[in-house]
């Protein structure tokens, strides 16, 4: 009985084809892996860039809001003769009282005329 032919009996392949095939595939895989890794790094750096830009915007926004708030407050205090409230910590109440009492300073720059009092309301500095 005639033996059934295999597909290899119909077709052939170039010489040494199968010997070189494994290395060829592994080289391609290595190349693809490298490309993938560099793409991954690129994506990460792009992500970091976007995050830092977004963070900068947030910081700028907060700083601006803080400045606007502070300026608004100081303006309000100036109009209410509460100048020293934001300038001298702890002692602001005393300077405010001084300002109110010192009538001759009304039309002057308040910074030029101030007193610093300690807790016992005794003068510790007078320009």
């Amino acid at each position, binding site marked *: 009985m005639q033996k*059934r*032919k*295999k*597909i*290899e*009996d*119909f*077709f*052939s*392949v*170039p010489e040494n*084809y*199968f010997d070189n*095939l*494994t290395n*060829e*595939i*592994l080289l*391609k*895989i290595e190349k*693809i892996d490298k490309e993938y890794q560099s793409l991954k790094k690129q994506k990460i750096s792009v992500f970091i860039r976007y995050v830092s830009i977004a963070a900068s915007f947030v910081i700028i926004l907060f700083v601006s809001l803080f400045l606007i708030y502070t300026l608004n407050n100081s303006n309000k205090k100036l109009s209410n003769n509460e100048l020293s409230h934001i300038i001298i910590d702890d002692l602001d109440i005393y300077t405010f009282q001084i300002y109110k009492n010192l009538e001759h300073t009304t039309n002057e720059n308040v910074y030029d005329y101030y007193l610093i009092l300690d807790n016992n309301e005794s003068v510790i500095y007078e320009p």
Partner: protein
Amino acid sequence: MYRSDEEILKDIENNNTATQAFKELIDKYKVKLYWHIRKIVISHSDTDDILQNVFIKVWKNIYTFKRQSSLYTWLYRIATNESLNFLKNKKNKFFIPLDLNKMLIEKLETDPYFNGSDADKELQKAILLLPEKQRLVFNMRYFDEMSYEEMSEILNTSVGALKASYHHAVKKIEKYLNIKLNIYE
């Protein structure tokens, strides 16, 4: 002599031995897969391209292989799908749809690596004239002597449907060869 699929897969999962184990996997299956693909696309250079893509795809997706089927079945399924997609892309590449069977027969006629006799060529032509599914089933059953159960897993078709496809394929080939051989005589 190659190690079992289980041992190879275990080493592929380990980063230190992955490349070496994958090399073993390629060595173990490259010839079988090559001939499986060659039967579908006929040309050596197309087969070479598809086979390389198959192994690259396997490398990329090996971690998703759930081991519900054997590695061999999984590889065959990838190779079959890649080959069929290749033909489908070729068919849709031009505005005028290509007659795929005609194109494959032309490739066979001009293939510098065809070794067979005239009768062998007629058998190959008869196979190439079959509808896609019948051609796949005939090739796997006739040349690879694959069981219907294995084919069922690879092609995702019932055993009954495969048997019917094979039966129809054999009848068509017989008819084609009878006409051709009578002409030769």
